[in-house]
C-alpha cells in the first residue's frame, strides 16, 4: 500500500489491534493454536440445570469470573478483556484514553429469571405471584443496581468510561450479523473523516436457560449432545442446527494514515463492507438467495475487487440445514465456477455460534488466517452433502497464501453483512 486512500479516494481502514475470547480460550495465541488444531470448544452446559432440555451443550466461556452472573455482566467482562488485548497490541492512545468512538455489538439486554425470582421472594407473595408483586418489591429501592445493569446502554457506558472512548457509545444489534454491523459502523466513521480510529467490539455471553430455549423452540439448535464436540457440523450432510456459544472480539480500526504516522503495525485491511436486508421472512432467507448475493457483491464493489481476487471465505457456516444451503447458493452465484474451489471454512464448527459477537470474532480469525497463511478447518465434516460441493477445508488446517478474504454474517430479521478483509 503506497497510498493512504482507496480506489474511491476514501481513507484506507486498517486493523492495528485485536483481542479475542471464545470457548477455546482467551487471547489470540491460544485461540489460534486451538482453532488450527481442530479443537472444539463445545461442552456440556454446567451453568444452569439442563434437565428436560433438548440441547444440553454450548460453547460457554466458563473461565472468566464475574461477581453477579448475568448476560450483560459477563458480556461486559468479556468485552473488557478483549479490548485490553486489542488496545495493548495496537499501542494506540493511552490507558483509559482511546482516541475514537466505541461501536459495540451487544445482545439485547433483559432482566433474567434470577432477578425475577429474587423480586418475587422479596415481595412476600406466596400463592400467585404477579408483576404487581414484583413492582411492589421493586419500590423498596433495594434493587436499584439491577435497574442500571439491565439498561441497554449500561454495558457501552461502562466500557466507554473505562477505556475513555470518545462520544456516546453505539450499541448495535443486527442479530447474528451484529459484529459485522459494528465493524461497518467503524469503517464508515473513519471513511467519513470523523475520526482516525474506532474501537469495535462484539460480545455475547447470553447462554442461559431462556435464551437457549428460545432458539430451541425455533428448532435452530443442534440436539446432537453426544459427544458435545461433534454437534457443530457445518456443510456436513447430517448437520442439524447450530450450537450456541459465547465470546468476544475487539478490533482497533484506524486510518492507514494514522497507523503509519505513529508507526503502528498493520495487521490487516478492512477493504470493503456490504449489506443488504432481506424482506422475505423473519428467520428464513429469500429462496433465490438474492439478498445474500447482493450483499457479497456490494462488499466486493466497495472494496474495488472482483470475485477472482478472493482467496478464502470465512463462512457464516452455522451448521443449520437452511443457512449452509443458502450460503452456498449465494457463494456459487457470486463466484461461479470457482465457488467449489475457493476454500470456505466455518470457525463455528469449533467455537460454536457466538451470535452477536460472531462477526467480530470471525473477522479477527480471518485476519489471522491471512497473516499466518493457514486456513482453519471445518471440523466434524464427516459426510459431504452432495448439494453443497464446498471446499470447507475438511477437518485439518491447510497452508495457503491469501491476499483477500470475505467474512459473511447473516442474522434473523433479514440481516446480511459481508466484509472484505485484505493482507497488510
Amino acid at each position, binding site marked *: 500500500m503506497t497510498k493512504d486512500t482507496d480506489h474511491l479516494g476514501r481513507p484506507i481502514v486498517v486493523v492495528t489491534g485485536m483481542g479475542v475470547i471464545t470457548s477455546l480460550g482467551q487471547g489470540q495465541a491460544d485461540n489460534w493454536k486451538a482453532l488450527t488444531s481442530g479443537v472444539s470448544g463445545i461442552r456440556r452446559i454446567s451453568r444452569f440445570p439442563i434437565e428436560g432440555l433438548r440441547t444440553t451443550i454450548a460453547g460457554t466461556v466458563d473461565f472468566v469470573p464475574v461477581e453477579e452472573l448475568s448476560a450483560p455482566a459477563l458480556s461486559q467482562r468479556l468485552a473488557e478483556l478483549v479490548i485490553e488485548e486489542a488496545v495493548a497490541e495496537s499501542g494506540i492512545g493511552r490507558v483509559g484514553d482511546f482516541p475514537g468512538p466505541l461501536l459495540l455489538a451487544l445482545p439485547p439486554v433483559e432482566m433474567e429469571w434470577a432477578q425475577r425470582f429474587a423480586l418475587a421472594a422479596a415481595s412476600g407473595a406466596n400463592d*400467585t405471584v404477579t408483576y404487581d408483586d414484583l413492582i411492589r418489591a421493586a419500590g423498596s429501592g433495594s434493587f436499584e443496581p439491577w435497574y442500571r445493569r439491565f439498561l441497554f446502554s449500561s454495558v457501552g457506558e461502562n466500557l466507554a468510561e473505562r477505556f475513555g472512548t470518545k462520544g456516546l457509545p453505539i450499541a448495535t444489534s*443486527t442479530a447474528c450479523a451484529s459484529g459485522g454491523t459494528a465493524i461497518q459502523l467503524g469503517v464508515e466513521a473513519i471513511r467519513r473523516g470523523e475520526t482516525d480510529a474506532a474501537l469495535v467490539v462484539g460480545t455475547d455471553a447470553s447462554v442461559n436457560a431462556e435464551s437457549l430455549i428460545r432458539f430451541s423452540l425455533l428448532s435452530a439448535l443442534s440436539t446432537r449432545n453426544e459427544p458435545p464436540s461433534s454437534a457443530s457440523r457445518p456443510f456436513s450432510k447430517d448437520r442439524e442446527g447450530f450450537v450456541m456459544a459465547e465470546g468476544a472480539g475487539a478490533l482497533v480500526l484506524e486510518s492507514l494514515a494514522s497507523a503509519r504516522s505513529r508507526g503502528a503495525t498493520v495487521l490487516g485491511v478492512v477493504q470493503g463492507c456490504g449489506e443488504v436486508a432481506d424482506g422475505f421472512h423473519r428467520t428464513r432467507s429469500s429462496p433465490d438467495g438474492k439478498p445474500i448475493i447482493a450483499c457479497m457483491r456490494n462488499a466486493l464493489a466497495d472494496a474495488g475487487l472482483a470475485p477472482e481476487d478472493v482467496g478464502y471465505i470465512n463462512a457464516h457456516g452455522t451448521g443449520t440445514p437452511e443457512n449452509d444451503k443458502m450460503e452456498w447458493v449465494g457463494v456459487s452465484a457470486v463466484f461461479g465456477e470457482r465457488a467449489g474451489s475457493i476454500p470456505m471454512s466455518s470457525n463455528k464448527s469449533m467455537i460454536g455460534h457466538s451470535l452477536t459477537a460472531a462477526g467480530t470474532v470471525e473477522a479477527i480469525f480471518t485476519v489471522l488466517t491471512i497473516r499466518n497463511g493457514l486456513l482453519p478447518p471445518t471440523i466434524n465434516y464427516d459426510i459431504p452433502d452432495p448439494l453443497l460441493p464446498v471446499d470447507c477445508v475438511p477437518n485439518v488446517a491447510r497452508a495457503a497464501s491469501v491476499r483477500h478474504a470475505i467474512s459473511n454474517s447473516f442474522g434473523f430479521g433479514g440481516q446480511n453483512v459481508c466484509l472484505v478483509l485484505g493482507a497488510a
Partner: protein
Amino acid sequence: MAHERDALITGIGIVSCLGSGADAHWDALNDFTPVVDTESFKPFPVHPLAPLDLDKQIPKRGDQRQMEAWQRMGVFAAGLALDSAGVKGNTELLSQMGMIVAAGGGERDYAVDTAILSGYPKAPNPGAYLNEHLLGDLRPTLFLAQLSNLLAGNISIVHGVIGSSRTFMGEEGSGADAVRIACARIAAGQGDIMLVGGSYNAQRPDVLLHYEMGGLLRRAPFDGVWARQSSGGGMVLGSVGCFLVIESRAHAAERGATAFGHIAAIRTDRCRRGPGEATANARAQFEAMAAHYDPAGAEVISGASGAAAPTAEEQAFLAEIGRPVRATATALGHSLEPSFPASLALAALSVQRGALFGPLEATEQTMTAPLTQALVTSWGHWRGEALALVTAA
C-alpha cells in the same frame, strides 16, 4: 447556505396517545389535553397508544400476528413516514433506502411469567421446573417479537425497506445517534435516503418494573414535566412510534419531494453526570451549531424525561438559551428510544408551519414571533446528551 447533501426531513410518521399521523399530532398539540391512563397500571400513570387501524399500514393479518405491540406501532409509524414522504410502495427506491432503528426489547408473555413465578418456589426441582415450563409454555414466535432488531426486520418484510438495516440499542441516546448517523451518512454520500426512528410500548408491566427498580416513576396525579420538579420529578412513560424519512437535498429535489425541515446540526455526547457535566456537553453542542442558530425565531423542543436531576439541570440550561420551550414528554409521555425522533418530528412540524403550538403547562411561554428554527434536546434520564437544530428546508 443550501447544499445538495443537506439532510432534510421529508417524511414524518408518528403514533402516540395523541393519535396517528403528523396532522393529528399538530391538531392535538394546539388544543392540548393530556391523554393519560391512571387506572391500568396503578399507581403509575401511562400515556396509552391511541387506537390504530392496523390494516392501513400492516395489511396482512399474518404479519400483525407475528408482532407484539411495540413492533406493530413501529411498523405502523414507519408506514406513515413512507406515505408522508411519498415513497410507499416504490420498490426500487425502498430497495436502496437505508434504515436505522432505535429499539429496546419486546414484550414478555405475562401469563407464562406469572405461572412460573408462582410455581417455581414450590417445585421439588426448581431448575427442571423452569426448563419444562419455558420449553412447554413459551410461544416459539414470541422470541421474534422480543428481539431488538426484529422491528427493523418487520419493516423490511411489511414495507420493503432493504437497502440497509441497523438497530441501535441504548434508551434515549440510541434514538439520537440513529438520527446523527443517518445525517452523517447522507452528508458523506454514504446514503441518499434513510428511514430512522423507533417505537416504545409503555403499557407493559415489565418496563414499569424496570424503572420502578430505579426509583424513576412518577405516581399519579398527572402533571407536566416541569411542574413535577417541585415535588420530586419522575418519569411518566408513553407509548410512541415515530419514524422520519431523512433525505439529501439533491435526492429530494430530484424526485420533487417537499421537506418539513432541514437538520442543520446534530450532536451527541456522554458524561458521568457529575454536577454541571451534562450542561458543559450541551453548551459545547450549542456553541458548535452557533453558525446556524438564529435566536429571534427559535423555539426549543425538549426531550426532558422528568427524572429529577437531569431535568432540573436541563431546565437551567434552557433558561440560559431563553427561548420558548415545550417538553415533548408532557404531551406524549417519555418514550426512551423513540423520544428523540418524536421531538424532532414535533420540531420539524413547527418549523414547517412557522409557528409553535401553545404551552403544554403553565411554566412554558407562549411564542408570538414567527418561528424559523427549533432546537431539540435529548438528555437521557441516565446518560447521553443530544442536541439538534432544525431549520427551514
